[in-house]
């Protein structure tokens, strides 16, 4: 129970800052709106209430975003293209497929790098280079190129999600596979264990905590990749498409709602991985 109070405090503080920022940012717009309507006899209270309930505010109030999310998640049927559930599921599917591919690729690369000494120096610069290319520039090209081979729909977006998620997983797992100390490795040598035995009985279990940390970062990165990819091809739907549509039509409330949906999705993915990690750590005796 002790942990509830700080959490509530932070949330309330964030909401307060948000409300103040919303009023400040919307003030010029609202002043114009009142001027255009010929209203001059408004009180400060009227003004604040109005500025927090605009149809297209610069920054919507939290309650507007909450209302929009309620409407587009609960009220509107999930089959509708105006439902955030509909778009969220598309994004989730791309993210999960991309994440699974990225995790497999990332772990595979880490295994190769740790097992084959010279690959570290010859392969790692390329991996780093692959991540220095801005994904926003690369994503449309990947979509166009894959389209050339009739690969459309979810696949190109999953590919971009995988592209973003494999790297942190590779880096984390290389570190994890190298976590055993020299003594633990010497021990394996005194048993004349094979390389694969050393890997399975020492390197792999020693990397457990790195594994779950890498998976969390990788999953969040996959979601970012999926959303960026959706922006480049918005007719297929997804939270990224929703963001783009919102910004086309100045629907800031819709943008914020989609944004929060994406954040919630990401938090849920990370949460599930964290939960799995805690179970694994308990089984491995790391929880005291």
């Amino acid at each position, binding site marked *: 129970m002790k942990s509830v109070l700080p959490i509530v405090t932070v949330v309330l503080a964030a909401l307060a800052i948000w409300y103040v920022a919303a009023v400040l940012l919307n003030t010029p717009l609202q002043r114009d709106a009142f001027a255009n309507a010929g209203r001059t006899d408004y009180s400060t209270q009227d003004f604040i209430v109005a500025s927090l309930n605009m149809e297209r505010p610069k920054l919507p109030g939290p309650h507007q975003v909450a209302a929009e999310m309620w409407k587009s998640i609960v009220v509107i049927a999930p089959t509708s293209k105006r439902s955030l559930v509909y778009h969220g599921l598309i994004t989730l599917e791309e993210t999960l497929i991309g994440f699974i591919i990225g995790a497999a690729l990332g772990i595979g690369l880490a295994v190769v790098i740790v097992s084959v000494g010279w690959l570290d120096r010859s392969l790692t610069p390329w991996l780093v280079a692959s991540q220095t290319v801005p994904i926003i520039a690369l994503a449309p090209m990947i979509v166009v190129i894959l389209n050339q081979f009739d690969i459309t729909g979810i696949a190109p977006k999953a590919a971009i999600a995988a592209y973003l998620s494999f790297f942190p997983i590779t880096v984390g797992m290389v570190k994890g596979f190298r976590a055993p*100390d020299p*003594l*633990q490795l*010497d*021990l*394996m*040598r*005194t*048993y*004349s*264990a094979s390389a694969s*035995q050393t890997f399975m*009985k*020492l390197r792999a*279990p*020693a990397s*457990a905590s790195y594994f779950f940390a890498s998976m969390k970062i990788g999953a969040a990165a996959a979601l970012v990749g999926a959303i960026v990819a959706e922006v480049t091809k918005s007719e297929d739907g997804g939270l990224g498409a929703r963001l783009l549509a919102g910004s086309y039509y100045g629907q800031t409330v819709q943008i914020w709602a989609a944004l929060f949906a994406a954040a919630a999705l990401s938090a849920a993915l990370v949460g599930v991985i964290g939960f799995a990690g805690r179970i694994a750590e308990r089984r*491995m*005796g*790391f929880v*005291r």
Partner: protein
Amino acid sequence: MDTASMTRPAAEGGSAPNEPVIEVSDVSLRFDTRDGPVHALAHVNLKVARGEFVSFIGPSGCGKTTLLRAVADLETPTEGDIRVEGMSTEEARLKRRYGYVFQAPALYPWRTVARNIALPLEIMGFSKAEREERVRKGLELVNLEGFGAKFPWQLSGGMQQRASIARALSFDPDILLMDEPFGALDEIVRDMLNQQLLRLWEVTGKTVLFVTHSIPEAVFLSTHIVVMSPRPGRITDVITCDFPRDRQLEIRETPEFLAIANRVRHGLRAGHSYDA
């Protein structure tokens, strides 16, 4: 100095009649570091007979750990030759002839004590039934019955080191190599473990190579004490220590014990005087 006569290069270590289990011939080992070469071992000769308990004592940097690691094929001598049961060190390692106990217990934290002891057995392909039987015997041997299901962090340092000894003995190697296994433990725990180790040695009849920097520990445990000195690491004296095998802690008060301890101390001092 009157100690000069004692600092003879050791040509023979074991005096038992049977052929040596370990034979170190003119071994030198040099590490090339950034600050230039370090002569960890220079022209070391040693023979250890079956069933001996040989301690290596000397100040840090005298190469005692390096010598043990070279016997275990964890380091490769720059010159000279080491034979273990007539084989090269690599062959002996591949044939799993020795168990190694490190300074730290080096238990794998994600394995229970029982599964740590079973680790070498898993690697060496023992059947599940055989593994369970050997783990049970191992826990009994080091007085850890009932602790098999615990994780290493739930054990004291002394218990962890006992578990690591059980692990080293689980696959029944002929030779036990121990690198300051009790260095990090307090005196009382150490005394207790020394007694247990002696009993274990008596029961199993293993050949033990034991690195330490405690004089009483070396004298109490060993059949032979190899005194080493640093820069370059070399053997300066080999002292025979022929107390009965079932010795008790009380022998440490006897004049014979103190005489041997004194000789070791003199040997160590002589080694140090080379540096000055």
